């Protein structure tokens, strides 16, 4: 019998590659389509009628150019990518079948709960369930251990971790864990629900899609619902895991996915970094990462819904370079304040040269006295363009820019800050040459300071490359502010650092101009009645636009915005073409030099809502 099974297995291994070409894609004659379904078997050939059972099995068969189509159902597995594509035409694609819900979970269902009295239930989890990664023994923060990486879920909603059984007894929807006799004990208060009949789940995996150590390139992930991943905490100068983790890989496309309840990072486009205690001008930080720019980044992270994640929605060192992050809805980050690090943000990127962050909605990012940013860039984001994003309800600044020589462009963004009095809104530390045009800043604080302490040797690069051109300290200077709309908080909070310019702006709701510019800017008496009108998946803007005067402003041309001699570049596209800002948030143009500052040249009639972002599920 065993002998027959062995022969069958050998035949399958031999024949499978021969049979798969029968399922050739019409678009690419050399690619194959491999199907995966919950009705399948991993011993199947993987065509539509006899699909595989697991995505991981399909991964072992995937070759450059192949498409793996996954059909509806919940897949409880971590797919470790060993194979990669070889070019944009030969990517390996993992996609949900059209119109089908494909859920990938980092959790396992638990049905062995034993009632302890009251609403408290107890489950004893054997170590082998975790397969070497037990998130219930790992604290998120070792220094202040208040929450583990693991979590308990009831009907897809996370429960709140407590530190004592007494607390769990008092709080419905909470749990506590202990280790006894080599097993993980979970005590949870499910209220009136019976966890053995309802859907009770616990984290057991650290990622949905990860890669081998050297990373994998040319991968497409499309249309998945990824949830309940116990992704460990990431550090820019350390490991950077995530529910989806490129781990140094390049040229990924991640689109149309939802990622929820990822404990730390949802999508990591980074790689393991390290600290640089002996950095100096001759050997600056991240020098070891400098290489051919075509060999890093180039990811496209597009139209994803990231919510209820702890540390960051999108995160990474180096491989944000030449990447595009667009149309993503990132919300409810660090809701439980389990992360007390500066590295908590909707989007957090370092060494992200020529990155484009376009039209994302980032809202409700929590934090403590540290962290809780909408977008945190740095060190090193030369050539970045941050455009048409809506960022609101952040614990700290909407935008935090750290240690960079610039230039970088911020245009047509709507930033609703945490309050001018908090001095948070646009926070900069030794961030040079940031050009802000046509943005709307609501109740934002503004600051740019020199990084205290040790003088850093900060690299800048030959334009659109990672070739180090200079290693000198970055300073707070050369920021330009043109044609912006400031409501409640103005540039009076900024000192006139060297090379800083501000003009052609409008200030409303008691926002004040700066003392070192704003010669042609206008101040409005009264209120613009700014309001962001949010709902699930969308947000809009209400504004008393009639109160906003037009300002005659020169064309926001490359020469007007400045030639940045240190980096030897204008404000430019990644391909080197200089950028003229001649379109507003909606893509409308105007030939009039006299126009309304901020992200809209025109507004609809009074009291109507201007749509800003609508995530199409």
């Amino acid at each position, binding site marked *: 019998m065993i002998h027959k099974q062995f022969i069958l297995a050998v035949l399958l291994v031999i024949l499978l590659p021969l049979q798969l070409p029968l399922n050739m894609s019409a678009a690419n004659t050399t690619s194959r389509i491999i199907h995966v379904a919950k009705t399948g078997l991993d011993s199947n050939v993987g065509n539509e009628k006899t699909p595989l059972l697991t995505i991981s099995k399909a991964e072992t068969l995937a070759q450059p150019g192949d498409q793996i189509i996954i059909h509806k159902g919940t897949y409880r597995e971590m797919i470790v990518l060993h194979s990669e594509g070889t070019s944009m035409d030969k990517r390996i694609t993992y996609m949900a079948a059209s119109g089908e819900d494909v859920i990938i979970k980092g959790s396992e269902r638990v049905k062995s709960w034993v009632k302890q009295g009251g609403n408290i239930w107890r489950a004893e989890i054997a170590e082998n369930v975790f397969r070497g990664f037990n998130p219930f023994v790992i604290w998120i923060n070792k220094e202040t251990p208040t929450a583990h990486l693991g979590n308990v879920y009831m009907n897809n909603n996370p429960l709140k971790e407590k530190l004592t059984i007494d607390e769990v007894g008092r709080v419905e929807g909470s749990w506590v864990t202990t280790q006894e006799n080599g097993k993980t004990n979970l005590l949870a208060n499910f209220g009136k629900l019976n966890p053995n009949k309802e859907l009770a789940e616990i984290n057991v995996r650290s990622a949905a899609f990860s890669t081998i150590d050297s990373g994998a390139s040319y991968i497409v992930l499309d249309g998945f619902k990824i949830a309940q991943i116990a992704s460990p905490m990431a550090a820019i100068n350390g490991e950077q895991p995530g529910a989806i983790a490129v781990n140094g890989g390049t040229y990924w496309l991640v689109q149309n996915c939802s990622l929820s309840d990822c404990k730390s990072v949802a999508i990591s486009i980074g790689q393991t970094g390290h600290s640089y205690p002996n950095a100096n001008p001759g050997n600056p930080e991240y020098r070891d990462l400098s290489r051919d720019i075509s060999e890093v980044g180039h990811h496209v992270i597009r139209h994803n819904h990231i919510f209820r994640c702890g540390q960051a929605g999108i995160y990474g060192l180096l491989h944000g370079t030449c990447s595009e992050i667009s149309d993503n809805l990132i919300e409810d980050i660090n809701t439980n304040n389990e992360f007390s690090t500066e590295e908590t943000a909707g989007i957090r990127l370092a060494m992200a040269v020529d990155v484009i962050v376009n039209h994302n909605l980032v809202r409700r990012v929590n934090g403590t006295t540290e962290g809780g940013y909408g977008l945190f860039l740095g060190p090193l984001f030369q050539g970045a363009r941050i455009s048409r994003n809506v960022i609101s309800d952040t614990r700290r600044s909407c935008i935090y820019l750290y240690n960079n020589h610039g230039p970088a462009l911020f245009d047509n963004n709507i930033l609703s800050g945490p309050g001018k009095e908090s001095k948070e809104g646009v926070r900069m530390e030794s961030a040079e040459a940031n050009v802000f045009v046509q943005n709307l800043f609501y109740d934002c604080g503004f600051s740019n300071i020199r990084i205290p302490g040790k003088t850093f040797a900060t690299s800048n690069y030959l334009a659109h490359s990672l070739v180090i051109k200079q290693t000198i300290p970055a300073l707070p200077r050369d920021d330009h502010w043109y044609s912006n709309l400031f409501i409640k908080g103005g540039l009076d909070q900024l000192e006139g650092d060297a090379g800083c310019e501000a003009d052609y702006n409008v200030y409303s709701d008691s926002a004040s101009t700066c003392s070192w510019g704003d010669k042609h800017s206008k101040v409005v008496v009264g209120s613009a009645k700014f309001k962001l009108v949010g709902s699930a998946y969308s947000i809009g803007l209400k504004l008393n636009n009639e109160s906003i005067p037009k300002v005659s402003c020169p064309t926001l041309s490359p020469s007007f915005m400045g030639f940045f*001699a240190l980096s030897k570049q204008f404000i430019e596209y990644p391909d080197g073409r200089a950028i003229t800002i001649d379109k507003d948030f909606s893509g409308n143009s105007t030939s009039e030099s006299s126009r309304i500052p901020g992200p809209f040249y025109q507004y609809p009639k009074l009291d109507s809502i201007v749509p800003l972002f609508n995530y199409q599920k």
Partner: protein
Amino acid sequence: MKQFYQLNTKKLKSVLSLVIALILSGTLPLQAQVLSLDTPQQYHPQAFVHPGLLHTTKDLARMKEMVANQIEPWKSGFEKFKASSYSSSEWTPHPAEHVERSLLLGAGKNIGDLEKDVCAAYQNALMWTITGDEAHARTAIAILNAWSKTFKIFDGTDVELGAGLCGFKLANAAEIMRCTYPAWSPAEIKQCQAMFMNVFYPPIQYFALWAHGNWDLACMKEMMAIGVFCDNHALFDKAVDFYYKGPGNGSLIHYIINESGQCQESGRDQPHSQLGIGHLSEMCEIGWSQGLDMYGAVNNRLLKGFEYTAKYNLGEEVPFEPHSDASGRFPASKISISGRGNLRSIYEMVLNHYKNRVGLPAEQYKYTKMAADKLRPEGAGFNADNPGFGTLLFSLKGENNLNVGNK
């Protein structure tokens, strides 16, 4: 020439008025890295004088005559010059396709070979005009041709310095040889000009606004030199414009920051301060060759920088005003003792201008003269930094002659 001087005086009047007004108002604009790329005004619309960099025909003739007649101080200056290995007609060039000057540990390609070769080219060109020994002419041409045929890529973190310093000496060599050695073919000259425009100029075209002033100045003097050798007036004007009103640390008033002569790099160290004022003086000397009195700008500001620097390096005290430079990156609260007393070979050129050409009262160049006297005969410049050998190259006969360009 006199007519031209008057014309330029008129054109410069508005520029200098602005500069002086800014100084008096104490509101010098600080710009860390944003550079206006506006076309500068024309400072030199008519044809260039050739040779017209550090040495005109008259200068070369004077050196030749004085050395031939064994007249001091040229005699001892020449002995020192001749003893330099770079003055040997036996010099063999080591051209490279790629040169990198870099601060990064482990980086750097062929920059040492280039620095040595440009010194050899310049000094052999001068040896040829002084001695008439054609072997030197052949060596100078061999170096120029070897590099202009081979050199394609110049890069590295410090490429502005590499291109500025090396290109300047090489351009001076080329300018002398084009005017004195007919055997250097038009095709070879064209090839050399192409090298300057395509390899040396691109790295310096935007100056170095983020750096200490000697960086800007290396770019400026090289740009001026390429302008003359390639008969490119736009480059010449761009460099001269930066001298008068450039936003970086290299402009005259940003480098010699006040009337006491304090320099932008005085708080950094003394060798760089001397390097910087040396660069400024070389620009002035080229300007003089072409009929511009850049020496006289802002009430002889250059001389004040030399006096201040010489005085301090001769052991006397000088006032120091706490200062933040034009880029804001290099604040200084006190003068630097680093390198104090190590006089560089930069003083003869400036002394001879103000003493023998302009005829200023002796007290105005007291310390510059003391420095020159102490060094005389001046030796080599440090690496390719400055031309050096000022006793031979820039000593004048003692004539006072206020006519600009009358060399």
